[in-house]
């Protein structure tokens, strides 16, 4: 077996914890700082903004899945009483998109519509009802193009192309990476497992529908309030499409009424209302209908995947080969990153010495897929963890024990050059095994009852920004007030996860004040330094570290002034209980406001800054930018199920879950993130589907979302939620602020495979796809009864002409993180860095 290479050094972030002080804020279950606003209905979401003279915007959307626009006539709509303005694609022709490599969207389609719901025109009117009525007065002449419904059809139908870019035909992106010789690895195995899985798409379904309000400021600049998770990226897209200096655009991310990744792209409606506000010189507002939210989508990609894994008799993995076929929908969105992510994190949980990944994302005529909680990783995690269950059974091992044997080590560098941080998956598994009474239940429950286990890992923040740059990923400014208040300015966006509370609690802890003494100015591109956004579980670690640095810097200034005044060595000063005092003689000291005044008298106005840039990744191959993170969270879950023998109905009475969080900054919120993840995971496991309906081809070209509504897209209710036992495993990771790692996404990942594994334990059938619906279970049960393979799942993986893989020798084969055969990668990174260094 190849020797594992441990990373030699981890970057240490200084924090107060290392001083051995007891914590007063961090780790204490607390009311979140924005809690009162939320329970009084005073949190102002984007649609809660009402400004005088507001005009209302509605978008005319394509009724065709794929068509060319021959002609648009807006004259009748414009003549309609109450209509102020009608915009079409030619008013906003500049292409944009979240990723620099996929600038493939237009705010209003100019000549090509790519899915039902693609916007082609906008009506801005005095009343929303008037704007809606006027939509019907816009005449669009379409030339219908072939409808491309799914990835296999996309592979078989190179023409017409949905986009003029991409790999070829309707293939958007190929990824082919090989870390060590996988065939050789598989050849060394005692057993080889080949399994095909399908993971259905799902959508975020935030209860808040996307809304935006734009105004032309008195000085002619633009301000937009929007339900966005990424104000900085929206800022950039607006500047590009509106062809305005970024300095003249202010984006204010209002608190999001749920995001889950669905508000992370710059959206057409945001650009349209901005343009309209500038043209009309009055506020312009849009709030999408629920149906339109389904057309924004950017949700979970449907993925067909095939795992080929070799294992030794003791469970050791000798090699893994993963192939994915990904349904991208009509636009790029984050899709290139999603395609890489689908192959990135397999190596982070179990040691895989040789690994090969081939991924293919196709364009189809459906709303674009993108990042949903767990971005790109829940689908292959499902396959990997279900396959591991099959492996354990074949090897006659307890699946929990098998996992414990093959876990990856802390601080390891994986085959694909991801440098891990703390790894407490062992403890997570032990905890869920204990609290679920696993040993007395697995394969021991009566027929129809079962338990299943699965594990996972997730990023604590993407190691690279969306656009390549060397600047910090997060910045924080602090302003110290003579009255003892501290104001935090930061671009971080509150989407419900508690980012405001993270910032306030870290600053309050360091400075020894109460979180409610802190004022927050967040999500505003004019007021705060850039934070890249609330995605990839990055805020706690990145904005948190920036806040920590700013607070420590402020603390140093205050300490110096207080030390002088109180004649105490500054190292001995303690900041707690709104005081700064001698830790050796606690009576000796000053109040926090006095400390601020002393510091201000000595140094002038007190303001400090902090910023955070993730450590450089050892991955230097093309595509190695997706997957690195400062550290990873780990989760293990045991799901209990009851399966009805006749109907196949799957009921989940209980979930036990343990999450390696590093440290819970606010345990109340951390638990909420875990339970919320369990909830969303169960939705995906059992009922949620972003499903489409292709009408009979001889009669129609229609391809429509099957049920773009909150009624028919099935989101579990309070009656569908099981008991959840949450264990937070706390082993502070020095890379995170006070040791914190992420908790918002990782706990979702093990739920779906744990349900599938539990169904097998209960009734002996394998459901190799999600959602695991009663129809599928009933069919598999019938197959079992008839002596056929007791399984429901995809039966093939299509032939794809994969490009030659980039070959990257893993660390233990002497690899340096570069591919040995990348002809396009002419210059090593060091050269690039020199050029860009200031």
């Amino acid at each position, binding site marked *: 077996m190849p020797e594992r290479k441990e990373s030699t050094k981890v970057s240490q972030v200084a924090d107060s914890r290392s001083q051995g002080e007891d914590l007063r804020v961090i780790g204490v279950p607390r009311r979140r700082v924005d809690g009162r606003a939320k329970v009084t209905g005073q949190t102002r979401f984007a*649609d809660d903004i009402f400004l005088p003279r507001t005009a209302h915007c509605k978008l005319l*959307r394509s*009724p*065709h899945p794929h068509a060319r626009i021959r002609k648009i006539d807006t004259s009748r709509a414009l003549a309609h009483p109450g209509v102020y303005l009608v915009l079409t694609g030619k008013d906003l022709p500049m292409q944009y998109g979240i990723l620099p490599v996929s600038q493939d969207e237009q705010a209003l389609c100019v000549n090509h519509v790519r899915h*039902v*719901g693609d916007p082609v025109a906008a009506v801005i009117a005095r009343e*929303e*009802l008037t704007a*809606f009525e006027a939509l019907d007065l816009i005449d669009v002449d379409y030339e219908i193009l072939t409808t491309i419904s799914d990835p296999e059809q996309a592979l078989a139908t190179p023409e017409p192309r949905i986009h003029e870019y991409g790999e070829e035909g309707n293939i958007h992106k190929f990824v082919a990476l090989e870390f060590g010789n996988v065939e050789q690895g598989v050849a060394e195995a005692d057993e080889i497992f080949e399994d095909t899985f399908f993971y259905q798409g799902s959508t975020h379904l935030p209860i808040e529908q996307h809304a935006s309000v734009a105004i032309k400021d008195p000085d002619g600049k633009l301000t937009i309030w929007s339900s966005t998770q990424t104000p900085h990226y929206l800022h950039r897209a607006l500047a590009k499409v509106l062809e305005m200096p970024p300095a003249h655009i202010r984006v204010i991310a209002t608190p999001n009424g749920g995001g889950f990744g669905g508000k992370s792209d710059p959206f057409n409606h945001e650009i349209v209302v901005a343009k309209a506000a500038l043209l009309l010189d009055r506020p312009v507002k849009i*709030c999408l*209908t629920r*149906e339109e939210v389904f057309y924004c989508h950017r949700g979970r990609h449907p993925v067909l995947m095939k795992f080929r894994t070799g294992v030794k008799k003791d469970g050791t993995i000798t090699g893994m080969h993963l192939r994915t076929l990904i349904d991208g929908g009509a636009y790029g969105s984050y899709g290139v990153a999603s395609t890489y992510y689908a192959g990135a994190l397999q190596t982070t949980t179990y040691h895989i010495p040789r690994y090969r990944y081939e991924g293919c994302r196709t364009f189809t005529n459906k709303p674009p897929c993108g990042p949903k909680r767990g971005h790109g990783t829940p689908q292959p995690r499902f396959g990997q963890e279900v396959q591991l269950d099959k492996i354990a059974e074949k090897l006659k091992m307890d699946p929990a024990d098998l996992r414990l044997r093959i876990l990856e080590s802390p601080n390891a560098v994986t085959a694909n050059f991801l440098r891990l941080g703390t790894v407490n998956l062992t403890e997570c598994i032990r905890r869920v095994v204990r609290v679920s009474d696993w040993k007395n239940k697995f394969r021991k429950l009566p027929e129809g009852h079962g338990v299943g286990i699965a594990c996972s890992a997730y990023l604590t923040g993407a190691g690279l920004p969306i656009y390549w740059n060397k600047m910090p990923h997060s910045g924080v400014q602090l302003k110290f007030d003579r009255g003892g208040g501290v104001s935090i300015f930061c671009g971080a966006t509150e989407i419900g996860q508690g980012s405001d509370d993270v910032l306030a609690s870290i600053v309050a802890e360091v400075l020894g004040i109460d979180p409610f003494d802190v004022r927050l100015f967040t999500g505003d591109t004019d007021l705060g330094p850039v934070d890249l956004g609330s995605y990839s579980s990055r805020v706690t670690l990145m904005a948190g570290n920036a806040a920590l640095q700013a607070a420590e810097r402020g603390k140093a200034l205050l300490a110096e002034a207080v030390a002088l005044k109180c004649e105490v060595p500054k190292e001995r000063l303690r900041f707690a209980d709104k005081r700064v005092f001698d830790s050796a003689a606690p009576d000796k000291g000053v109040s926090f406001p006095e400390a601020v005044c002393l510091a201000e008298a000595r140094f002038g106005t007190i303001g400090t800054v902090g910023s955070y840039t993730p450590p450089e990744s050892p991955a230097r191959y093309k595509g190695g930018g997706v997957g690195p993170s400062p550290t990873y969270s780990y989760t293990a879950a045991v799901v209990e199920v*009851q399966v*009805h023998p*006749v*109907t*196949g*109905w799957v*009921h989940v009475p209980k979930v036990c879950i343990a999450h390696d969080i590093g440290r819970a900054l606010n345990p109340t919120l951390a638990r909420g993130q875990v339970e919320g993840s369990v909830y969303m995971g169960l939705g995906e496991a059992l*009922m949620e589907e972003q499903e489409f*309906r292709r*009408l*009979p081809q001889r*009669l*129609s070209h*229609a391809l*429509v*979302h*099957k*049920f*773009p*509504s909150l*009624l*028919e897209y*099935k989101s*579990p*209710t*309070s*009656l*569908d939620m099981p008991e959840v036992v949450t264990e937070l495993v706390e082993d502070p990771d020095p890379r995170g602020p006070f040791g914190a790692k992420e908790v918002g996404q990782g706990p979702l990942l093990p739920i779906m495979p744990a349900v599938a594994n539990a169904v097998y334990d209960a009734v002996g059938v394998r459901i190799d796809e999600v959602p695991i*619906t*009663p*129809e599928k279970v*009933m069919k598999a049960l019938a197959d079992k009864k008839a002596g056929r393979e007791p399984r429901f799942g995809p039966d093939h993986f299509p032939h794809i002409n994969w490009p030659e893989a980039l070959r990257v020798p893993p660390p233990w084969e002497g690899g340096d993180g570069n591919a040995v055969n990348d002809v396009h990668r002419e210059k090593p990174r060091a050269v690039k860095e020199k050029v860009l260094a200031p």
Partner: protein
Amino acid sequence: MMRLPLFEFRAPQTVLEAVRILDGEGPKAMPLAGGTDLLPNMKRRQQVPKALMSLNHIPELHQKTLSDSGSRLGACLTLSEIAADAGFRNGMTALAQAASFVATPQIRNMATLGGNLCLDTRCNYYDQNYEWRKAIGFCLKKDGDTCWVAPSSSKCMAVSSTDTAPALMALGARVRLVSRLGEREVPLTELYQNDGIHYIKRRPNELLTEVLLDSLRGWKSAYWKLRRRGSFDFPVLSVAAAAKLSGTGVVEAARIVVGSVACLPLVAREASELLVGRPLNQGTIAEAAALAARIAKPLDNTDFDMTWRKRVTAEFVTYALRELRGEDMRGERLLLTRHSSSL
């Protein structure tokens, strides 16, 4: 935000006034009770009445008389009022259960018995926004000429999705329909017809004012509802069963109704007749369930796979009958419907 289209608003104070309005306006006026069915349909532009006539200001529609010799239920009783009233037990349990499983608590506080009986038929191709329906070229039920559920069908296949109708049919209910010219009593089993568009025989100028029930002394009834989630969802299969049992447990009379699998609730006549004169034992129940399931012909226009819905039918009939026999079905209820107690 989805907006209602413009409409005229009328708020009569008496049934007489109401039927005069209906007579004058014709089908362009629609009665508005709880609004939980009609207003979403209007927002989606499935129904665009010229006038809305509120029934919420007519006291006589809110009356309720429960007695051993028979009951009269005003059409504007809310589903919450029915679910919460302990008077709706024993014989009328199925009705109370059906009412208590409709949609959500808030909707049950608004939705009325009459409204649920007149509920528009539902279909995945029809209960969609205007823009969505435009994308499929509309459908037979509204603005189009193809039934996308069965493109060769000349008839609309939208599904009867009322919970209370199957229950009340099993209880032998009648409804009173009042028009300006007079009134008529119609057995509920004759109120509906097998057409997704013209699913109800209520004429546009008639108002459904009350539900009438004969004495249910000696009867027991139960209602089972299949849906994906524990709340919100319309039924994709429903089974109502009522039986009058003798002291020795022999069935003297019985009615089984299967709902949500056709344009109207279906009375399982053969299955019901089979029960009469026999004890409700395992064998009888199995026979009746098989017979009842035979009439269910669900189509692919609701949630869930249609073959699966068909196959669950016998199972649900079995549960309903076992419940009538006095078996404790709370386990199955919890597992399959997320409601542990039947009420």
